[in-house]
């Protein structure tokens, strides 16, 4: 089972998807925080301790891939699991190259996501906890 203090961040512009994923992850014992946009996530400045990011690729404003790039640029080594409604191969390649843990196509099996989250959390080694991302 998962460690109690680890947090799974979910970023998706679709409210019902957010709620569903939050419940699923919670039912598996994860601590979950959801965000409606990449901007909101960045603003909260929460990346500390063991955590991982479940990220929707297409969002209005800053997209998932752009957020990943920003985190990399900030040297924030949070593991990212991409979820997308319609991913294509170039997009997957780009995401994986940028260090994504997994790339899941909606709608995905619950176990797939949970496995990916577990894998991500096991790998989490935040270089600088509590670091201001700004």
């Amino acid at each position, binding site marked *: 089972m998962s460690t109690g203090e680890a947090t799974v961040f979910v970023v998706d512009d679709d409210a019902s*998807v957010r*709620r569903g994923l939050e*419940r699923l992850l919670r*039912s598996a014992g994860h601590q979950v925080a959801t965000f409606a946009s990449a901007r909101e996530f960045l603003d909260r400045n929460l990346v500390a301790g063991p955590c991982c990011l479940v990220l929707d690729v297409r969002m209005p404003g800053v997209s998932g891939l752009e957020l990943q790039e920003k985190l990399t640029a900030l040297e924030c080594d949070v593991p990212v699991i991409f979820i997308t409604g319609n991913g294509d191969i170039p997009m997957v390649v780009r995401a994986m190259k940028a260090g994504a843990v997994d790339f899941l196509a909606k709608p*995905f099996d619950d176990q797939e996501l949970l496995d990916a989250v577990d894998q991500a959390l096991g790998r989490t080694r935040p270089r600088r906890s509590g670091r201001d991302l700004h």
Partner: protein
Amino acid sequence: MGRGWSQQKRERTAVVFTAVLVCVAYFVGSRVGDALRFMPLITSVMWPPNAILTATLLLAPPRRWWIYILAVFPAHYFGQPADRGLLLVLLLFLTNWSEALIAAISVRAFSGSPTRFDTLRRMAGFIAGAVVLAPFLSSFADAAVVSLFRGEPYGMVWRVRFFSNVLTELALVPAILLAITRGPAWFRSALPRRRLEAVAVMVAPVFVWSVIFESMDGWHAFRASPALPLAFLLPSLLWSAVRFGTGGTSLSLLVTIILATSATAQGRGPLTTVPGEGILGLQIFLTLVGIPLMCLAAVIEERGQAQEAVREQLRFEQLLARLSSSFVHLPGEALQEASETWAGRLGESLRLDEVALHRLSRNPLDFVVVSAWTAPGLPPRPPCTSRDVPWIAEQLRNERVVAIERPEEMPAKAARDVETFRRKEIRSCLSLPLVSGGRLVGALTFITIRSERAWSQELVQRLELVGEVFANAFAQKEAQDALRASEVMKSAILGSLSSGVAVLDRDGRIVAVNDSWARLTPEWEAFGVQVEADDNHVSAAWTAGVDGVAAAREATVGIAAVLNGSRDSFAFEYAAGPPAAARWLALSAVPLKGPEGGAVVSHTDVTERKRAEMEAQRSRQELAHFTRVSTMGELTASLAHELNQPLTAILANAKAAQRFLDHTSPDLGEIREILSDIVDDDRRAGEVIQRLREFLRKGDADFSPLDMNGLLRDVVKLVASDAVIRNVTLALDLGPEATAVNGDRVQLQQLILNLLLNAMEAVAEASPEKRVVTIRSRIEERVVHLEVQDTGPGLQEGVADVIFEPFYTTKAAGMGMGLSIARSIVEAHGGKIRAANNAAGGASFHVVIPLVSATRT
């Protein structure tokens, strides 16, 4: 020149012949005069030579007088008794011809026709000049000569010569002139009975003298009143005056004078008491009787002529009246026959030899023979043409009357006409131009061959009236022909039309139909209206309307509106015949412009066109559907996303619920929330599917009131995911008012979708933050304005007009149908679409659609 020369020669011969004749007559006259002489007086009781010379000078033109005066000199010389000296002979000759000269000059001064004595005025002129003045003057000279040479008493010589010459001039000059000018004609035309009467009137004085006067000595009554026997002379003289005119009277008088003179000279008869004085008495008596007699004869002749003229005029007017009445309502085809008949009647009544009627043809402009008549007994010959008589034709074309008494009268330039006259032996000709309504329509020609004819002004005027009748008949025929030609053309045109055409009077009654009308009438029957020729079109349509055929009601109202002038035209299309709409007919009505009013109604079979239209409509719909399907293809990615979102949420929620339920104490409240969310998400996915299905629905247009803003929001939802994928911002700026339009949901969705996709395509190349598509709506003047504005590169110059054309595209993979379909949808909704560049860059598509209250339902 040859002709002129020979004519001159002929004339000369005639003059010489006449001169010889006059000379002989003069000589004979002088012998007669000698025989009627009372010796020893030199002056005769009657001296014919002077009268003969007077008659000659009256007949001959003045320029030839000298010829005849000289010609009679030998006769005068040899006619004189041998005992007279040359000087005396010469002087007497002088006095004699001076008398003739005075007589001829004065008569010519009094009368325009010196050889005629048929009016009182002419006769009076003759008596005053030739009978009184000439002897009166010349006798002074004669008496002087005679008394000088022969010692005879002047007064007695003057008196004897004066009275003898008065008597001679009075009796002999008219007798000679009329015998020459009118005698032959009278003899030719007089009936035997009339000739017998003439002989009787001449013999009567002989009877009086030889029977009555010879035996009168035995008559007691004669002895009692010596003047009574003279009364016996009057009956025959009066008889001749009443029955035989001036000519007969002068002859009768002459006979009486000769008888009386010779009897008295021989001492016989009632006037013999004193030889010389008896002759004088006789002369005075005969002069006093002769002058009134001659005047009486002239008056009677004048009366007779006037009567004859009146009778002639009456006859002519009757002829004209019959002619007019037979031509006035003459049908065109009978003109030929009637004109032939009347040419003959005119010719017979005017005693002509040929009558020809020509019509002026328009192309080429020439006279064409309509009818020709030739007098019986003459060989019929073809009438003259314009080529035969170019000068006359030219005169007629200039609407001038041509009256020719003799061919020689024609001018030098009419040489060809003269030649034709000679060849055809035409003596006289009268050609009248036929003019009707100020327009030359033909010519009427009268010709004489057997005699010359003087065309008196009166006759020409009368014949011009005849010409008018023919001219009007010609003009009428031309008008009839023109009318018939236009009728033929009209019916040919009407007959060739495939449309059924009916002419209605102002009450809507059918007055004429073409052949196609009859062919299309069964269609009407099937449609519920029975319309036959002579039916009232409007009421038939109305009856059908009352019976429930809606189209007939519309036709009724429309046609009635055209008939009463409230509409300029009316047209509509209707389906006819079972099965429903098997045939389509188009009805149109236009008013007849004219005082009578009415309308022309036509029915045209437009089934083929209608079928083609419906076929095109179906093709358009299929194409529209196809493009909708392909549009959906473009939207696949975003649609997948649209569906994946709720599905993902549903799956996650369901799995979470399962896990929660595996817990020892599941939070049922949470489970309830989860299920509620699942239901919502499922519904959300269903809506996507529903929209998609609606959009891809195939079928006919279904117009109903729709909220335009609601439609805009729906379509924006449909493309929202796509916009996200393309990183395009969709901005909605919808007006607050209700935007109800009457339209087809699917079509209008397609319109908006096409415009949005087009706009999103346009901004694809712009940087992400500049990819904005704005959708606006507002209401203005009872129409909805929609605007889709993009921030793309804008339209190229000149493209705004062609982008709505089918197959116009700037995209590599595009079909070029999107905007074309958009336009046809807008137009089907009674709206307009246009494209323009924005001032700040990018393009705008502007759509205007009428609000529901503003459109016809």
